């Protein structure tokens, strides 16, 4: 353990780890793509999708890591806080169903709204035991979803302004993906004349055969990656600070932390609100990217996806959250459809409507219908795998693959300052 303070900085280790995982993922998908005979545009588009989902799950896992990994707050209402963020943004910035304010005000407002709903949940719920806290947060996220779905909020008026969640058909608003048009096109008009970054990228893309729409998505995905880096930096700073130390203290033994004079309730409320705001932001960047959203995008299952991502990577570690997001997106989200495409492209499989029709031909040793059925039921299989992964992790690796909750929480090098000057070559810690 004594190497801890002296080895290369945490962020370098993390960057190498994440970069390595990303490159490996890209390599696998590129091979898949080549097997499928995709052209450059197809492969880039595939990598863009993988990166997009890796980024959004990383954002959510990072936010959840602040709650669960650092502070031990068992929040399983992630989907609800995302919904609050996206809908608040929608109501603020939608011209038809909301106030029609600029998008950035909507984004800020969405984060504030998510934080406030977090406060509402946190104030009374923080003294509950972890399992009750879980049920309350899940209940809250379902209350939010059902309220958004309800016909009574479909349209309403505040101060003469007509607003509405749109019930089941959802709400439309300026897409967050649209922000990339500011750097790609003159006048920020999609499909207009390329400008700024656009005038650089589009011709370049054209020469290797990448379509403008893929370029646009890729630029937005790059923006998400920037957000992932920003989340990582902010959260790592929080983690490596006296505040982060208090959070760890709460997780490890709240009674002891309180007996040392730490006002844990305040810290928990702050950190819960911040995490909720980040979940709201992640929701806006993800579900808000297309400019329309419905309550069905915020089913509780989304929360469990995020949990899988976090637990796969290892709760308590920011780098683990990002790698977890990547593994989840690549292996469980984007991987299976790819496998399906490869199978369908290479095998002459039909898709029987029921498992009965798929199993019957087995009597004649014909496995193709079964393969076809399984390939056709990929979504169900994917959910099953997510469940099995959770169970297996709890049985074998409850701390996750990279899991450790032991990142040091301090704002500075922990070797003894007065001895640091002459540290070279001196055995650390065990001074006589």
């Amino acid at each position, binding site marked *: 353990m004594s190497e801890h303070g002296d080895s290369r900085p945490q962020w370098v280790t993390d960057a190498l780890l994440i970069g390595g995982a990303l490159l490996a993922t890209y390599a696998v998908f590129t091979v898949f793509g080549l097997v499928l005979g995709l052209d450059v545009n197809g492969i880039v588009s595939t990598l863009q999708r993988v990166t997009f989902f890796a980024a959004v799950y990383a954002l959510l896992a990072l936010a959840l890591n602040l709650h669960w990994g650092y502070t031990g707050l*068992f929040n399983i209402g992630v989907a609800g806080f995302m919904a609050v963020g996206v809908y608040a943004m929608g109501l603020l910035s939608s011209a038809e169903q909301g106030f029609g304010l600029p998008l950035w005000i909507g984004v800020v407002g969405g984060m504030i709204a998510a934080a406030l709903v977090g406060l509402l949940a946190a104030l*009374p*719920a*923080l*003294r*509950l*035991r*972890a*399992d*009750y806290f*879980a*049920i*309350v947060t*899940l*209940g*809250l996220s*379902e*209350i939010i979803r*059902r*309220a958004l*779905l*309800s*016909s*009574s909020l479909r349209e309403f008026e505040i101060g003469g302004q007509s607003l509405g969640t749109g019930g089941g058909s959802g709400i439309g608003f300026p897409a967050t993906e649209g922000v990339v048009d500011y750097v790609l096109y003159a006048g920020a008009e999609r499909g207009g004349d390329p400008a700024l970054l656009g005038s650089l990228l589009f011709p370049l893309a054209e020469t290797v055969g990448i379509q403008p729409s893929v370029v646009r998505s890729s630029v937005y995905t790059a923006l998400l990656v920037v957000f992932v880096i920003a989340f990582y930096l902010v959260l790592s700073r929080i983690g490596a600070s006296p505040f982060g130390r208090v959070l760890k203290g709460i997780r490890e033994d*709240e*009674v002891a932390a*309180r007996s040392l004079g730490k006002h*844990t*309730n305040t810290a928990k409320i702050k950190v819960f609100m911040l995490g909720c705001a980040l979940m709201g932001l992640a929701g806006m960047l993800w579900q808000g990217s297309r400019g329309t959203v419905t309550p069905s995008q915020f089913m509780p*299952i989304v929360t*469990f996806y995020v*949990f899988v991502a976090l*637990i796969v990577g290892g709760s308590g570690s920011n780098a683990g959250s990002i790698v977890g997001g990547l593994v989840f997106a690549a292996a469980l989200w984007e991987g299976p459809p790819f496998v399906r495409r490869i199978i369908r492209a290479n095998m002459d499989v039909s898709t029987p*409507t*029921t*498992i*009965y*029709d798929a199993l019957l031909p087995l009597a004649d040793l014909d496995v193709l219908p079964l393969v076809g059925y*399984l390939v056709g*039921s990929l979504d*169900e*299989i994917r*959910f*099953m795998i*997510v*469940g*099995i*992964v*959770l*169970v*297996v992790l*709890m*049985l074998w690796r*409850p701390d996750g693959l990279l899991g450790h909750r032991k990142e040091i929480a301090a704002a500075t090098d922990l070797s003894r300052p007065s001895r640091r000057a002459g540290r070279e070559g001196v055995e650390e810690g065990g001074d006589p």
Partner: protein
Amino acid sequence: MSTVDLGGGISRLTSERTVRALVVVAAVVLALDLVRRIYTGSLTLGTLGFYLWNGIVDGLVFGLAGIGLSMTYSILRFANFSHGDLLTTGAFSGWTVAYLIAGAGIADTSSRLLLRADGGAPPGQLDLQILGEPIAILAGLVVAALLTVLIALAIDRVVYRPLRDAGGIPLLIASVGVALALRYFIALVYTSQNRAVTASSPEWSSPVFFWTEGVNVHELTMVVSATVLMVGIHLLLQYTKLGTSMRAMADNRDLALITGIPTERVVRATWMIGAGLAGVAGYLIVLDRGTITINLGWFLLLLIFAAVILGGIGSIYGAIVGALIIGLTINVSLVWIPSDMNEIAAFGLMILVLLVRPQGLFGGVETA
């Protein structure tokens, strides 16, 4: 070691009292408003009776499902998020058997084995309702219980037993995993198609049911079955050695161990009873609704949790009372709020109870 005052002393006490007072005031206001509505005629007694009856029907089924959740909580010490999917398991396995029997000679084999996954002969053609095919439906009920028990025991063996001492949260997360795996395994076999599997219920008119022209026989079946099973559970828990040892283990697991109670056997019995009732509850819900979906249990899970928490998690009688309150809440609340908001009222009630009286109405046990 000791319980901890997280909220911080006096201010919390007063705020708790304020909330409690507000709850009482709200209840009184609602009750008065109900009287006013009936008096002014904006709410007929018939409508209210309809709501109350539906509330009791829903409440009894939630109660049946809640008993198992409460038992696993008190004896195995974790919140089982896969409990809802045990309802789903019971519903699919039971109705498959009922359909298999009733559909003999009418529907295709694949339809009969996979409960109309291919959209085969509709249940009306089979006359699959309680008076038309009583034997098939009864057989389905039995299989629903048995198969759910078997699956629950298998899952316990593979997943929960190795985690016995892992603490509440790892078990909870594992149960989420079990829930997903189980639900989508069912979807893989049966497809995630929403479909009708029972014929519509006959009506029975009798002067006993003064508020309505006739009573839905399927609902009546549910009420009778649920009541009989609840009485049965009561007798089992109170008057048998097994039941007593289950209560003993819920009280104090360590003492049970040194008293010589075979704790693993009690755990098995807990799964058998809890899962059996869950399977039956799922089966009966489909009898009433007429349609089946893989999300049946998952969508009900939070309501069942609400019921169990309301009554005091770990208390079986609390679960039954809590379930009736939740059942009545989601139905009677329709007097004031639109029908797509009534579950919000139930979840709101659950959160309120957790905040004001986390131990529930009937006490209950402590876990992680």
